[in-house]
C-alpha cells in the first residue's frame, strides 16, 4: 500500500491523541492551581475532557471510506481505528466517573494523568500500522497501567499487583519484541501492510513464520489475559484499586484485541490453518476461567476469572477468521465494555461503604440499595449471556461466526461454558437478593458521578441488547477495514 506524503489534514488523524495530550497538561496544571476542592474538580475535568475528545473524534476523525496510511505509514486511518478509539475513550471516561469519590488515596492529578496517557497509548495501539509505532504504543499503554495497579502504595496487595503486572508484562513484551525483530530480520521492513508481500518474495519457511506468530501471540495473549497467559489477572484485579481493575479488564483488553485482530488479519492471513492456536486459546480460556471462577469468595477475583472466560468467547470470533467472526468479536468487546465496567463500578460503590470485596458481604444488598442490586443483576445476567441484555447478542454472534466457519465444536464448547458460567453469576445474585444481613437499614450512598456511570452502563447494556443493528453496523465496518 502506498503511503501518501504528509499533508496538514493528517493532523485530523491524530486529533484524539493531541486532545488527550492537551488534557493531560491541563490536568497537571489544574492539580497545582486548584488547591481546594480539587479532588472532585480534577475528576470532573478529566471526565469532561475525555468526553470532549470522544466527541471531537466522533465528528472530525471520521475516516474516509478508503483507508489511508498517514505520517509515513506509522498510523492507519480506518474504521477499526475509529471504533476502537471511541471504545477506549468512553471506557476511560466511565472509569474516571467511578474513580471519583472512590478512595481518597487514588485521586489527584497524577492518577488522572496516568489514565489519560494510557488511553492515549491504547488509541495509538488501535491505529498503529508499523511495528515500531505499535511497540511504543503498547508500552505507552502498559507502563501507566503498571503504576495505576500499584497506586495504593501502602497497601501490600496493591503493590504486589503492580509489581506482578509489570514483571509479567515485561516478560511477554520481550517475547513479542523478539517476534517483531525476527519479522524485521526476515523482511527488512517494519510496515505491517508491507510484511505479507515480503513473506511471499523472501522464501521464508512457513514453520519460521508460525513460530514468529506464536511469539507475537504470546504478547497479545497477555494483554487480553487469555489462558495460559492469565496468571497475573486475578491477583492484579484483586490488588489494584477497583476502578483501575475495571479499566484493565475492559479498555486494556479491548486494546489487546484491536492489535490482535489487525495483526492476524493483515500480517498472517496466509497462516490461517495455524489460527487453530487461537481456537485452542479460546477453549482453554473459557474452560479455565469458568471453572476457577466457581470457587471464588472474593467478587473481584470472581470477575477476574469471568473476564478470562469472556476473553475466550471473544477469541472464538477471532479464531473463526471470517468477516462475521471479526465483527462478532468487536461487537462482543463493545457489549463487554459497558457490562464489565458496570460490574466493577458496583464493586467500587459497595466496597466504599461495606469495606470488603467478599461476596458474603453483599448479603442484603437488595434491601440496602435496590437500585444497585438491580444494576448488578443486569450486569451479571449480561455477562452470563441472558437476553435482552448486551452479552446475549454478543455471544449469539460469536457462536454464529464459529458455526459459519465450520467450527461447530468451538461453538458447542462455548455454549456449554456459557451455561456453566451462569451458575456462579447466579450464586452472587442469590447472595444479593435472598441472603439477609443484620444491617439492612443502612443505605449505601451513591454519589451523582457513580449514579450517572451506572445508568449509562445499564442503558448501554439494554441498548446493545435490543437495538443492536446500528452498533453491529459499526462493528462490521470496523471488521472489514483492517
Amino acid at each position, binding site marked *: 500500500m502506498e503511503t501518501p506524503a504528509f499533508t496538514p489534514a493528517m493532523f485530523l488523524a491524530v486529533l484524539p491523541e493531541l486532545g488527550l495530550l492537551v488534557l493531560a497538561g491541563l490536568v497537571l496544571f489544574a492539580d497545582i492551581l486548584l488547591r481546594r476542592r480539587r479532588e472532585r474538580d480534577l475528576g470532573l475535568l478529566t471526565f469532561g475532557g475525555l468526553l470532549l475528545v470522544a466527541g471531537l473524534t466522533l465528528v472530525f476523525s471520521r475516516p474516509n471510506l478508503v483507508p489511508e496510511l498517514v505520517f509515513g505509514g506509522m498510523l492507519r486511518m480506518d474504521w477499526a481505528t475509529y471504533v476502537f478509539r471511541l471504545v477506549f475513550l468512553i471506557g476511560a471516561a466511565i472509569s474516571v466517573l467511578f474513580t471519583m469519590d472512590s478512595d481518597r488515596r487514588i485521586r489527584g492529578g*497524577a492518577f488522572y494523568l496516568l489514565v489519560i496517557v494510557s488511553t492515549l*497509548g491504547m488509541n495509538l495501539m488501535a491505529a498503529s500500522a508499523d511495528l515500531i509505532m505499535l511497540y511504543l504504543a503498547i508500552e505507552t499503554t502498559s507502563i501507566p497501567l503498571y503504576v495505576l495497579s*500499584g497506586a495504593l502504595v501502602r497497601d501490600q496487595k496493591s503493590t504486589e499487583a503492580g509489581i506482578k503486572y509489570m514483571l509479567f508484562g515485561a516478560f511477554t513484551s520481550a517475547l513479542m519484541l523478539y517476534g517483531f525483530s525476527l519479522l524485521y530480520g526476515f523482511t527488512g521492513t517494519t510496515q505491517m501492510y508491507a510484511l505479507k508481500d515480503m513473506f511471499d518474495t523472501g522464501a521464508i519457511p512457513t514453520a519460521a513464520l508460525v513460530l514468529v506468530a506464536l511469539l507475537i501471540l504470546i504478547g497479545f495473549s497477555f494483554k487480553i489475559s487469555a489462558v495460559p497467559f492469565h496468571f497475573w489477572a486475578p491477583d492484579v484485579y484483586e490488588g489494584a484499586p477497583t476502578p483501575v481493575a475495571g479499566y484493565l479488564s475492559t479498555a486494556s483488553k479491548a486494546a489487546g484485541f484491536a492489535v490482535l485482530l489487525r495483526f492476524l488479519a493483515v500480517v498472517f492471513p496466509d497462516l490461517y490453518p495455524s489460527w487453530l492456536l487461537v481456537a485452542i486459546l479460546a477453549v482453554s480460556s473459557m474452560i479455565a476461567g469458568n471453572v476457577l471462577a466457581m470457587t471464588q469468595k472474593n467478587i473481584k477475583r470472581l470477575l477476574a476469572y469471568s473476564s478470562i472466560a469472556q476473553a475466550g468467547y471473544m477469541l472464538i470470533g477471532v479464531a473463526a477468521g471470517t468477516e462475521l467472526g471479526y465483527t462478532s468479536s468487536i461487537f462482543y468487546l463493545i457489549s463487554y465494555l459497558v457490562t464489565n465496567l458496570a460490574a466493577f463500578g458496583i464493586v467500587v460503590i459497595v466496597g466504599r461503604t461495606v469495606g470488603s470485596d467478599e461476596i458474603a458481604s453483599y448479603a442484603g444488598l437488595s434491601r440496602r440499595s435496590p437500585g444497585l442490586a438491580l444494576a448488578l443483576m443486569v450486569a451479571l445476567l449480561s455477562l452470563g449471556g441472558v437476553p435482552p441484555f448486551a452479552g446475549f447478542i454478543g455471544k449469539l454472534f460469536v457462536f454464529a461466526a464459529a458455526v459459519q466457519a465450520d467450527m461447530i465444536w468451538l461453538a458447542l464448547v462455548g455454549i456449554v461454558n456459557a451455561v456453566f458460567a451462569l451458575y456462579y453469576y447466579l450464586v452472587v445474585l442469590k447472595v444479593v437478593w435472598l441472603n439477609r444481613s443484620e444491617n439492612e437499614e443502612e443505605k449505601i450512598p451513591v454519589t451523582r458521578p457513580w449514579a450517572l456511570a451506572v445508568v449509562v452502563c445499564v442503558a448501554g447494556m439494554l441498548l446493545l441488547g435490543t437495538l443492536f443493528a446500528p452498533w453491529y453496523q459499526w462493528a462490521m465496518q470496523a471488521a472489514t477495514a483492517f
Partner: protein
Amino acid sequence: MTIQQVFFLAVAAITLFAAVMVVSTRRIMHAALWLILALFGVAVSFALLETGFFAVVQVVVYIGAIAILIIFAVMLTRQVFLDVGPQLNRGWWIPAVLVAGLYAALVGVLSTWSGFQTQAAALPEAASDLSQFGLALVDVNAYAVPFEVASVLLLGALVGAIFVASDRKGVER
C-alpha cells in the same frame, strides 16, 4: 568460521553469563556491576554490527547514566544489601523446559531459512551518516510520530515514578 564470528560468540557468551549473574547473585550491588558488564557486551555487539553510534550511546546512556543511577539508588535506599530467601520455586523447571524447547525450535527452523547462512554485507559508507538518522526522527513522513510518542511515554513514566515514590513521605491522609 571467521575471526569476527569467534569474537561475536565470545562476546555473546560473556554478555549472557553476566546477564544470568545479574538475576542470580544475592548481593544487589554485585548485580548492578554485572549489569554494567552485560550492557557493555551489548555495546560491543553494536560495534560488531558496524553501528558505532549505538555502541557509544549504549555506553554513555546505559552504563554512564542508568547503571550508575541504579548504583546510587541502591546506596541511597536499601539498608540491607543481601537478598535472603529462596530464589527458585518448585515449578522452576516448567518454564525452563518450555523456553529451552522454544529456543531449540527457533534455531532449528531458522537454520532452514536461506538467510541463515548469509554473510553480513559490509555497510555502505553513507550508513554512518548520522544526519540521516536525526532527520528521520523528526520527519513527519518517517519517525516523527513514534519519536513524539516516546516523549509522551517518558512523561507518563516520570509522573508514574513520582506518584509511586512521593506518597511515602506524605502523612497518612
